């Protein structure tokens, strides 16, 4: 793109990333509030039809660098329907050289037939929803796999896909420091390319929420939860992983490029129920109810439920916040060039205070979270975003 391009196009180049939401799971885990249907495999065909419709609206086939199949559980689709999914998506998107194509999978779904389809269609990154190796914790989380199945799935997956990431959850009632250490060690023993660790978040509307309200179980105290998180950071970085985003750790060169697009304020296409896209400076979210999504799209209506376009300074603040969630932080000069606003202008007071309190550090033109800042970062974002 030339330097004379208008600001609008310079700031919002056409997306080079796409997200496809696959809203099916075998059953809903108790902590989960994602957009998905459990036990409604009868709708998969209609979903594929709708997805095809939605994607066709994008017009000409686009070239992209990263593609991400998330859910729900994309791996829940039977091999044949998986194939159809890829056919549909591939019609719309052309993967550029050196592309990254990720798919979320549950260990119990990994079998030879599905792996063959993934390989055939060029999926080159698998994100495996392991969550834990501890039987009791897996039961608590209502997962449908055993620790043994994880090993099998991992080995099988690795035969066709090198780049496998594992998801782990901590801060369940089972997570003593020792139990959590065991989880981390077992994950490391598989030498995955990437690990994501998520503090268990219990949202209103999940069955866990009401169970915790009733006192069926208790979440760990803030202090204990923090220690578990720090334990993960220390263990994984010592094992050679780079802690590159709040919850994400990668072997050198194995960061998830697709997710980096989100955090860096890049544009991306998206399709499927509840999917969110960011195209030409507009954020849109599809209807979160899968059935409404299907009805709308198949009736020729727009699936978009929410749409917003932020004023430039708000957009800059949003960008700052999400970029700061990456551990390498923000290049102060580049930020100003990209957004047209200096950090000083949009959040000077808050940032200065956070630096003073040791929550942010400013070195060599980079602004980044300190360990302390990382731990309480949500409170920082409040101050930056509400002006």
């Amino acid at each position: 793109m030339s330097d004379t391009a208008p600001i609008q196009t310079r700031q919002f180049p056409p997306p080079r990333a796409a997200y496809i939401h696959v809203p099916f799971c075998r059953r809903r885990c108790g902590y989960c509030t994602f957009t998905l249907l459990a036990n409604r495999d009868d709708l998969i065909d209609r979903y594929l039809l709708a997805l095809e419709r939605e994607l066709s609206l994008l017009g000409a086939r686009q070239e992209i660098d990263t593609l991400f199949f998330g859910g729900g559980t994309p791996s829940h689709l039977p091999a044949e329907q998986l194939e159809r999914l890829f056919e549909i998506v591939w019609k719309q998107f052309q993967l550029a050289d050196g592309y990254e194509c990720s798919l979320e999978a549950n260990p119990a779904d990994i079998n030879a037939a599905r792996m063959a389809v993934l390989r055939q269609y060029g999926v080159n990154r698998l994100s495996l929803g392991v969550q834990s190796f501890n039987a009791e914790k897996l039961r608590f989380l209502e997962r449908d796999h055993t620790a043994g199945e994880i090993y099998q799935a991992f080995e099988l997956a690795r035969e066709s896909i090198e780049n496998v990431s594992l998801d782990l959850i901590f801060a369940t009632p089972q997570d003593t420091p020792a139990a959590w250490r065991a989880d981390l060690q077992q994950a490391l023993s598989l030498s995955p390319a990437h690990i994501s660790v998520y503090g268990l978040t219990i949202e209103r509307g999940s069955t866990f929420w009401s169970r915790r309200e009733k006192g069926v179980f208790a979440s760990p105290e803030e202090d204990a939860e923090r220690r578990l998180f720090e334990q993960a950071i220390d263990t994984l970085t010592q094992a050679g992983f780079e802690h590159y985003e709040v919850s994400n750790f990668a072997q050198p060169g194995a960061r998830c490029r697709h997710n980096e697009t989100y955090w860096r304020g890049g544009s991306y296409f998206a399709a499927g129920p509840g999917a969110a896209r960011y195209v030409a400076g507009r954020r849109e979210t599809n209807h979160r109810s899968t059935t409404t999504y299907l009805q709308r799209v198949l009736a020729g209506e727009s699936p978009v439920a929410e749409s917003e376009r932020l004023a430039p300074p708000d957009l800059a603040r949003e960008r700052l916040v999400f970029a700061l969630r990456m551990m390498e932080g923000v290049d102060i000069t580049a930020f100003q060039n990209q957004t047209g606003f200096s950090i000083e202008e949009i959040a000077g007071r808050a940032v200065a205070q956070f630096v003073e309190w040791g929550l942010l550090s400013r070195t060599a033109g980079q602004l980044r979270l300190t360990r302390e800042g990382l731990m309480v970062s949500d409170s920082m974002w409040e101050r930056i975003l509400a002006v």
Partner: protein
Amino acid sequence: MTQIARAAQIDCQHIRNFCIVAHIDHGKSTLADRLLEFTGTVTRREMKEQLLDDMDIERERGITIKARAVAMRFTFEGETYELNLIDTPGHVDFQYEVSRALACCEGAMLLVDAFQGVEAQTVANGYAAMDNNLAILPVINKIDLKHQRADEVAEEMEHSLGVDQDDVLRVSAKTGAGVQELAEAIVRRVPPPKGDPEAPLQAMVFDSHYDEFRGAITYVRMMNGTVRKGQKIRFLRAGMTREVIELGQFTPQRTARRQLQAGQVGYLICNIKALDDVNIGDTIVDAADENAVALQGYEEPKRMVYCGLYPSDGQDFSELRDALDKLAINDPSFEFEPESSEALGFGFRCGFLGLLHMEIVQQRLEQESDVDLVQTAPNVTYEVTKKNGEIISVHRPQEVPDLGDIEEFRQPIVRVNLLQPVEFVGPVMKLCQERRGVQHGTEYISTTRVMLTYDLPLAEVIYDLHDKLKSATRGYGTMDYELLGYFPADLVRLDILVNGKRVDALSVICNRGDADRRGRAVVKKLRSEISRHMFEIAVQAAIGSRVIARETVKAMRKNVTAKCYGGDISRKRKLWAKQKEGKKRMKSIGSVDIPQKAFMAVLDTGANEK
């Protein structure tokens, strides 16, 4: 038209002016309903419960706040009488409404609940009526109650008020039983007003309210003479001359008449734009009457408590002022003036008749404007004589001079009557003693009920004595108080420091002997009210430069969203922005968000730690 014509013919002999007074909730407004119905003033179709309580806030809370006057017609033994009734509030905060009503009447109906019996306000109002030389009509209400004990109550009335048991009427404002007899008793036992319709005009202004369209409506009790539409009148104290544009009576809505004459109660509309121009207690005379004599007016209502009201967003200052102005128009008993605080910025110091009044004003402010308020803890007014002889009135703790400059520190003392069943006397005495009360008297008003009289600091009475009394007496105790005056006491200002910085709006005045305990209690309470921040917060209590208590709000340990991908960005951004928005209700003092509730924490007396 016929009514207007007839109104002119009423002479004093056919007028009866009376008010209904009682302890709160004994059924005054409900009995007024029955009288309105019985006299045909209001038809059954128009009737609703406590019809005279027509302010939203009265209906919401089920209590009377403002006294209301109504003129009724009643034909008895062939003669038609005009009965002017004034329904009064029972709550002690609105006692001045009662005192104004008393000055307009020749009789007072003293109502007592047939189950509750004589309570503190019964005694206070009964004596106030006697002091005004009114004929007392003792009435026991709610005789329909299953657990009514009217006979005992009649005995209590005799003991506490000296009324003859045989004179006590028994009614049910619910069923209407006894209302006919009551109406007859009003005619027989309440003396007619004196006054001479032919004498020079003399009318007492006993109340006013503001009407959006007509301006100030002046409530008058005609003492002498006659006032007519179109007449030029003069407000003596205000020195203001006006023409009467409309006059009339409340029935209960405003009903225009051609004239009002000695003995009657009614209203005048005379083009007065601001309520400030109408002085309650003023005397209205004929504009041409050079020798007119003023009637004895009323004492100004006394503001018992003060608090600061601040907009939580400094931008809203002028909006808050407009809202306060608007409120004050219809509530002259509430006063405010601008003040500023280091911690809270610009706001207002507001004076109230009591805590209920304060609560009501605040509720109205919140309903009628959308300014988020930060309220400081209520305090009473103190007096200080400085070493240089200057005497100052202290309306807020910040105004207390340096310890070294104080010659004498005085606090308001009230005489409190506490009325409860005998078995609770012990606990109630203990309550009063803990609050530095000095016992003044004990009186058995029946074999089972005792009235204790204590002199207590107003500050101790206002904050929580009522609640404490209720819990110490299983709800049976009632209390009433009147101001005795200002007396010396060993008082200090207790300051609160947040992260080393004194927060002026959190200072309180307390007895030196209580300071340690209170300081500890307050910082502890504050610790629980202030949520964890990104840094540690020290909360200290100090007298002068001496720190007497300290608590720490530990720094937040973990607050970080784990998952944040493409679909979460909008949602999280909105959530975070909103969370901060929610904290706008708080006051940010040196980066510490202090919630509204914390400003009340300073009222914690630490009594539970004793």
